[in-house]
């Protein structure tokens, strides 16, 4: 069994972890560990980071060889700081992630990804030539891309018809890629690609977006609540499985940087030529997925998303697309409290 490398952000390229001989382990904020993070940091931080830190403080983690942090937002930066206190013996690397997609940013991120790769190989006591390293990364990327393409295909199918259990099955595949290996995710995807049950009509088609929604059971709940998830935009959903175009540049790290920065835009990454483009992107994706409405789920205290919600609301209003915004923590339990609002929303879409 490979040793595991922990990470928390969707901008962490799993193929780099696997190429260095490790298994990826995305630390989801899923824990029964007591609330302690607020003491080390503050309670005004998102539950994503607080629960991940609670896991670190309570040792609710598998054995990890090291942790990769990405400075995607202030809260993530603080998590990296607190990790050093919580687990002082862990190896840690923090990758600087630019917020734009211009050439300078791409060049810089490509160097950061190269630094990540070099560090990971070092952590595994491996010294290989740049050619061999690049070859191994490319190999891992091809596998990763097969999963990414299957995920995309599945999402396309979801946007056309409603297949019971499909959305939660897709989430399981994605979680497997995040917490086990690309190989396992691939095997699972190949099995699950064909829906187990035939398409059913009648549920309300909704596009969902936000920061984190990783529990497959939540997608089953949505179906119980009359919702057909036509597409998703979360850093734990298909957005995490970014297809890497290795033909973009001779330098593999640059290809990775372009693919991740351009294809994985979450709220914290922006196109400066089009301020507020996240709003337009959500409108387009919702329309493309044939959704009749949009639901946003964001975690409390998440600045990157909460600051963009007014722009998103405005853009959806302009297109007359009904929108429901829900704020919560990362638990499936908290989702239960939203049942009435979600059901009322999906009923309204049917009218």
């Amino acid at each position, binding site marked *: 069994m490979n040793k595991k490398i922990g990470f928390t952000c969707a901008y962490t390229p799993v193929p780099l972890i696997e190429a260095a001989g490790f298994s990826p382990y995305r630390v989801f904020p899923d824990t029964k560990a007591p609330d302690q993070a607020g003491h080390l940091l503050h309670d005004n931080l998102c539950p994503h980071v607080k629960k991940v830190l609670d896991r670190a403080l309570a040792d609710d983690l598998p054995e990890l060889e090291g942790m990769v942090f990405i400075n995607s937002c202030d809260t993530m930066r*603080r998590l990296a700081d607190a990790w050093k206190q919580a687990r002082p013996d862990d190896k840690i690397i923090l990758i600087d992630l630019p917020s734009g997609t211009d050439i300078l940013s791409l060049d810089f991120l490509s160097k950061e990804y190269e630094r990540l790769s070099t560090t990971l190989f070092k952590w595994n006591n491996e010294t290989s030539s740049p050619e061999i390293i690049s070859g191994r990364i490319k190999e891992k990327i091809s596998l990763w891309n097969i999963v990414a393409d299957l995920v995309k295909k599945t999402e396309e199918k979801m946007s056309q018809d409603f297949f019971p259990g499909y959305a939660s099955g897709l989430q399981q595949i994605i979680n497997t890629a995040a917490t086990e290996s690309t190989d396992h995710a691939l095997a699972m995807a190949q099995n699950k690609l064909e829906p187990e049950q035939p398409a059913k009509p009648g549920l309300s088609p909704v596009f969902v977006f936000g920061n984190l929604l990783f529990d497959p059971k939540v997608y089953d709940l949505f179906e119980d609540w009359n919702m057909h998830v036509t597409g998703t935009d979360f850093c734990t959903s298909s957005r995490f499985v970014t297809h890497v175009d290795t033909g973009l540049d001779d330098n593999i790290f640059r290809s990775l940087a372009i693919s991740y920065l351009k294809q994985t835009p979450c709220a914290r990454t922006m196109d400066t030529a089009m301020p507020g483009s996240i709003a337009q992107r959500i409108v387009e994706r919702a329309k493309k997925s044939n959704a009749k409405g949009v639901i946003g789920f964001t975690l409390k205290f998440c600045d990157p998303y909460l600051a963009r919600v007014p722009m998103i609301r405005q853009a959806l209003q302009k297109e007359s697309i009904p929108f429901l915004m829900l704020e919560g923590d990362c638990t499936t339990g908290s989702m239960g409290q939203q049942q009435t609002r979600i059901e009322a929303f999906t009923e309204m879409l049917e009218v």
Partner: protein
Amino acid sequence: MMYEHFDNAVKGIKEKLNNDPEGINARKKYVLELSRLGRKLYSKDETIAWCGVTAPFDLLSAMGVTSCFVEFVGAMLASTQTAGYFFEEAEDSGFATDSCAYHRAVMGAVLKNAMPKPDFIIGTSSPCTAGLAIVENFAHQYKKDFFVLNVPQNYTKDAIKFLAAQVEEMTLFVSDHTQRPLSMEKLGMALENFNRSSQLLKDIYDLAKTKPSPVDNRLLRDFGVVMPLLMGTKAGVDICQAFKDELNHRIATGWHHVSKEKTRLMWIQNRIQHPFPMDEMLDDLGAKIVVDELNNVTWEPMDPDNPFESIAKRMISIPFSMDTSERIRLMQNLAQDYQIDGAINPCHWGCRQGTGARGLISKGMQDINVPVLNLEIDCVDSRNLSKGQIETRVEAFMEMLS
């Protein structure tokens, strides 16, 4: 309305200064210059850039741009007790009540058309994610061009090179909008002013270390955060000189010995912006804020031969850009240099960047035996303020220190 506000402030302060030609009046001169900046921002015939907190204001002023960080307006609205109206506007438009109130106030002002329209916008990823998000909202709302300076956290060669290249690219972006190329001569002068101001700041801070300190609880409040708006100009140098003169004068006349200084304190991050009587309360308790965390020169002198790299290094060196352990190291140094007895961290509610590190900061200061009072207070939004509770905690803390 705002133009008149600043214009009246300029006239009023000038009159007071004219009536006291012999006086040093550093704080008045400083407020005068900030009011002049405010007046320029609202005057409609300047090239205006709304910016992030760590933007290179010296470079922008060398390029003929009147620039300011948006949080400055948030603070001003809070201090003039007009922020409430703007919070409501922002919140009604969907801005979360849990967000930083500096941003909510200023966003409300944008939505209410109470802000001067910028010619362009320059965001900075430091100090905070929320600040960058809010200037993206500005750009979206005003439909103005937007440039972002990504400030990396790691102080590496690549990081410095990356930021330096962005700063250089920013000058092209600015020239495109002003139709004026960057004059290296003007930049050289701005950097020289900046360096002279930096040296004077060091002198000021050294004087403040004197025991008992010649500062009082108001003199240098929020100085280190706001001064960069002026430091590339001759006026900035004059203001720094005035503060230095004022402190020397206080020492020469023995003011510092008669001032009450039972307890020496450090204030972490920014002060409370709404009219909360913290300074008076501390005065009454004989406690003196001898150092604000951000009253610190963390950068090397600007090198006119390598202006962009110098500016980049300066931007990364600011405590907010770094990781918390580095920020704590700087605080520990200040604590020792200023021989403080304790520190107050106001834990501004919506701030993930600074308040988010509350526990780590307390621990870091404890490691050098400096107790920290964590006040849970919104420094800008006073609507839910529990004044009595804060007073009780401050009193108890001072008692504990004595």
